[in-house]
């Protein structure tokens, strides 16, 4: 049955995942946001320093918060502004166009669409996650218009021998003027006729509904199931799912950062740290729990050896050796707990955070940060580390019966063959 299901997936599902991964605009958005990741981690370092996970230390740091917030505002706070450039840059590059001109133009478009404050200043709140979705829209709009002009050859051509830096500036001139004019025109019409702004319209039509779905409990659970179903067929689930969901997760987290800085209650549980760290201790599927069982309890040579060989990778949340080595992939016995464990952990984490037992996550750490540090750092709460340890035990309990059955199977096969060729034999048996 598994065989047939698998060939069904290979035939119908794989091309969809492939299309999704190759889709130009999604790819540009993803790459554009990945480029911002280092900045967010740098900002997170300052967030952690300004509010350490122990309450008494946090109290001590309080007077320094305004100073420590400067780098936070310059990283998280500029998420939208940086995204418009880096998305436009990546999209233009994918068309083989000049990324720099497209990026520069998109920044202009972004500011044309941004209403200034009454004192005539740049509104910082619209530069961060609030501006992320309009940044995506304008980056794509800019590049597509620019491309249209290039394709129709409506650009100012320079004679040969003019240095590239000069002609580059001129090729962008006509499309750039048109882009700025259109964005400005639409914004003015919205303002005068309906008293709306482009920021407001994109927020209402795109940001709010997407965040409502993506940030909800059910949205997170569906994402977790999908990610692990994909992994069950040996496909990098998080890569596929994040290529659509990443902007939503980042902007939810940035809202938590803003609330944290303002000293308000954090609005969201679901966000980047929840989706990248919390149900993925040891890698997707809470693989650390399974790896610990291999090392601790396995009697078959195969699982014991695999556990010993991959426990260190798993400590740093790399799960491929276990997923492909055990294997979990296309192994009905292990696929079941592989989906159930992260789901249970996701639920426990969600409700612990919603009910206030543990702080909500707002800090972004590299995904290779080992437990329980990742739990403590993402929430800025030492209880986050405790919850993460509990999660590992829960996952071990879920894996245990399935692991025992599988281990027994392997042990029987090993004693039958009494040779080192067990893995190959097993492959044929499947």
């Amino acid at each position: 049955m598994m065989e047939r299901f698998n060939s069904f997936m290979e035939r119908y599902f794989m091309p969809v995942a492939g299309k999704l991964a190759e889709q130009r605009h999604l790819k540009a958005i993803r790459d554009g946001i990945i480029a911002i990741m280092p900045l967010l981690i740098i900002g997170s370092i300052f967030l952690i320093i300004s509010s350490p996970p122990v309450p008494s230390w946090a109290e001590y740091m309080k007077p320094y918060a305004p100073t420590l917030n400067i780098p936070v505002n310059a990283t998280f706070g500029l998420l939208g502004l940086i995204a418009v450039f880096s998305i436009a840059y990546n999209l233009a590059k994918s068309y083989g166009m000049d990324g720099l001109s497209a990026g520069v133009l998109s920044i202009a478009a972004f500011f044309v669409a941004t209403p200034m404050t009454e004192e005539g200043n740049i509104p910082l709140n619209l530069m961060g996650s609030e501006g992320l979705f309009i940044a995506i829209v304008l980056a794509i709009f800019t590049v597509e218009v620019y491309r249209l002009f290039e394709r129709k050859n409506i650009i100012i051509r320079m004679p040969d021998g003019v240095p590239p830096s000069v002609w580059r500036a001129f090729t962008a001139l006509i499309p750039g003027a048109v882009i700025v004019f259109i964005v400005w025109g639409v914004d003015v019409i919205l303002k005068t006729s309906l008293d709306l702004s482009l920021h407001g319209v994109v927020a209402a039509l795109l940001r709010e509904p997407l965040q409502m779905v993506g940030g909800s409990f059910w949205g997170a659970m569906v994402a977790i199931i999908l990610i692990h179903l994909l992994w069950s067929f040996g496909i990098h689930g998080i890569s596929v799912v994040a290529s659509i969901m990443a902007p939503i997760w980042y902007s939810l987290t940035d809202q938590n950062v803003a609330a944290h800085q303002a000293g308000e209650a954090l609005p969201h549980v679901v966000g980047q740290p929840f989706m990248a760290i919390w149900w993925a201790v040891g890698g997707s599927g809470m693989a650390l729990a399974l790896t610990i069982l291999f090392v601790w309890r396995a009697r078959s040579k195969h699982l014991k050896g695999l556990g010993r060989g991959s426990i260190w990778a798993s400590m740093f949340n790399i799960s491929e050796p276990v997923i492909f080595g055990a294997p979990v992939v296309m192994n009905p016995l292990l696929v079941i707990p592989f989906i159930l464990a992260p789901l249970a952990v996701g639920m426990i984490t969600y409700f612990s955070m919603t009910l206030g037992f543990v702080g909500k996550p707002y800090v972004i750490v590299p995904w290779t940060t080992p437990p329980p540090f990742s739990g403590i750092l993402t929430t800025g709460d030492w209880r986050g580390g405790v919850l993460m340890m509990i999660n590992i035990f829960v996952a071990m309990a879920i894996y245990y019966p399935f692991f025992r059955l599988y281990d027994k199977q392997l042990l029987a096969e090993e004693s039958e063959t009494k040779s080192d060729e067990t893995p190959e034999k097993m492959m044929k048996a499947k």
Partner: protein
Amino acid sequence: MKITLLCALGMSTSLLVERMKEAAGKRELDVEIEAHSVDDIDEQLKSADVVLIGPQIRYKKNELFKKADSARVPIDIIEMRAYGTTDGEKVLDQALGLI
């Protein structure tokens, strides 16, 4: 000669690279073996003699194989079991078999 392994971030294949280097060392082969993120494929195709991709990103096969073909670099998906057991010998054989 250079063998490049690609996976989502170049992280999990880097474990395999170490084993492949050991295997190559045993056979006294003069090969360079590197792990990279799949996003670096364009760059890697310029210098690699053969490219292997991790099975978890095989859903990108079409795009990657097309690129490799036009760069005339042999490419294949690492066999799943060998990948899981980080079997350096086997994957090295797979890479050498493509050239």
